[in-house]
């Protein structure tokens, strides 16, 4: 006779009609000869019947779907929360408007991986090079797509995209974005001009679906929903500056600051929390002040060496055949290049040190996410975050 322990786990499944064939027979046979399992099976069967009947008894009345759809289609002002409707109209319209842009952005991302760009890891099923809304694309993660020349991206409110269990599939966006020069990012509720910036952007749904995404999100979303507000885009600036336009206002954000775009005038209910997190960010900024100063110094030294090297190259080209002098110059160039490289290595180390401080702060509080799923490097760099699973 099978062990009761294993059988017990199967009893609810048998009672709910989820078992068939030999397994079901085994469980039945065991229950026939085991009093406690037989009793449990009958309890589970009773529970299944009762749940179905009792829950059905209190289902919404007839035509509930029609009433819901009617309420959805009802013109403004006729419904309940005015704030909700005002807020809701905006993102929805934006999503519709952005739908066309989704295809453009997606094309850009993945076309480039096929032509000129480099797909470091991760691949689209069937080597698709276009992405259509409503279709599913499998990407192994972590995927890094190199995208030379990208200067902008539509990243947010792309609800046609989502990421699920290591699979990128028609995701909406939260992303890291790194820009070498100026670039523009549009979301439904903000436009940000970025200059040499490294930012995080996320516009997300609310409540339990996002538990674990971030401390800020967990705090804000349930409140946003309780108040009938939509959830604004979050922009965190790590490096560089972002000039943000949103809801008719403008704001310049420097490194270490973050904001929520929300078109509502006056203080938002998140202000206290934002101030608290900003204090932490300030602390991290202070902590890394020395390192950042050194980083800047090394950057300017490396730039100076780069200028010298450029000068040498010009001289070398002008010499045209003077072998003794050009050999001497080449030797100096090698030396300068080596010094420059050493400085760049230090720069990399400084950046890592700074990142470590910020990463700890942010990963714990703001961006507790899974590994990066998709990264675009080059003059534009974007990471789609896998979160919440």
């Amino acid at each position, binding site marked *: 006779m099978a062990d009761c322990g294993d059988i017990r786990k199967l009893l*609810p*499944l048998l009672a*709910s009609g*989820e078992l068939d064939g030999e397994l079901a027979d085994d469980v039945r046979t065991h229950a026939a000869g085991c009093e406690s399992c037989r009793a*449990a099976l009958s*309890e*589970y069967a*009773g*529970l*299944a*019947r*009762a*749940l*179905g*009947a*009792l*829950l*059905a*008894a*209190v*289902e*919404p*009345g007839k035509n*509930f779907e029609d009433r*819901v*759809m009617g*309420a*959805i289609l009802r013109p403004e002002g006729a419904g309940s929360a005015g704030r*909700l409707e005002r807020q*809701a*109209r905006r993102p*929805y319209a*934006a*999503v*519709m408007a952005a*739908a066309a842009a989704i295809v453009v952005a997606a094309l850009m991302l993945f076309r480039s991986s096929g032509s000129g760009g480099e797909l470091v890891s991760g691949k689209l099923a069937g080597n698709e090079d276009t992405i259509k*809304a*409503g279709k599913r694309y499998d990407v192994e993660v972590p995927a890094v797509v190199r995208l030379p020349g990208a200067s902008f991206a539509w990243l947010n*409110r792309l*609800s*046609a995209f*989502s990421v699920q*269990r290591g699979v990128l599939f*028609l*995701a*909406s966006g*939260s992303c890291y974005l790194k820009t070498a020069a100026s670039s523009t990012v549009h979301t*439904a509720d903000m436009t940000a001009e970025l200059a040499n910036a490294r930012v995080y952007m996320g*516009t*997300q*749904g*609310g*409540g*339990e*679906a*996002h538990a674990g995404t971030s401390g800020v999100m967990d705090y804000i979303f349930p409140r946003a*929903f309780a108040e009938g507000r939509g*959830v604004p885009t979050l922009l965190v600036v790590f490096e560089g500056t972002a000039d943000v336009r949103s809801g008719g206002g403008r704001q310049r954000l420097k490194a270490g600051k973050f904001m929520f775009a929300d078109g509502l005038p006056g203080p938002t209910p998140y202000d206290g929390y934002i101030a608290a997190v900003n204090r932490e960010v300030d602390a991290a900024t202070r902590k890394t002040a020395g390192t950042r100063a050194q980083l800047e110094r090394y950057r300017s030294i490396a730039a100076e060496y780069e200028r010298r090297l450029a000068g040498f190259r010009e001289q070398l080209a002008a010499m045209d055949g003077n072998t003794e002098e050009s050999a001497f110059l080449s030797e100096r160039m090698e030396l300068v290049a080596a010094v420059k490289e050493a400085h760049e290595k230090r720069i990399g180390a400084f950046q890592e040190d700074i990142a470590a401080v910020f990463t700890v702060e942010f990963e714990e509080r703001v961006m507790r996410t899974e590994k990066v799923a998709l990264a675009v490097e080059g003059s534009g760099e974007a990471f789609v975050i896998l979160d*919440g*699973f």
Partner: protein
Amino acid sequence: MQRELLVTLPDKGVRPSDAELVQRSLCEDDGDAFGELVERYKGMVMAQALHIVREYHAAEDAAQETFVKAYRSLSSLERPEAFAGWLSSIARNTAVTAASAKKHASLEAAVGEDDAPRDILPPGETGDPEVLSLRRETVSRVLAAVDELPPAYRSTVFLKYLKGYTCAEIAEATGEKIGVTTSRLTRANAVLREKLADIAKEGWR
């Protein structure tokens, strides 16, 4: 009195996933797709609302408002496959707001006359007052027990016992692995059996 077990028989193999329906609602402005989500989860949302609001009509209003809110915020749902949990949190917030509004209203009404019957059972349930009272108690306990389940377990219970989905169909709808669904169903059953043991002993009413 036993009622007939009401289940909707599934059309096998043609049931789109939550994520697909969400995307269709968003990208194609497809009212039918959202209507299907309403159909799929109205029981769950209603039960949550009823548990908090404790009055059938007010709960129905809250359930309706929940879906309207969900529709209007759909674009902010980052992971469409997480629709059920997300919807569930909107349902809770909406019901809590409705319940506190109702409390205010009834405080005001207490001064005047407020004799309107407040019943968690839908209108039309008639019979022996004693039987009805027991039934109220049973429904109330079941709603409470189901409400205490984690959201994913809760939606599994509703899809299984109210909508008549098989585990495979639930897994398909929610985009999770079938092993996850069956283990949720098993655990939800064990929890509910324990919580409702005394009612089961008396015989379900």
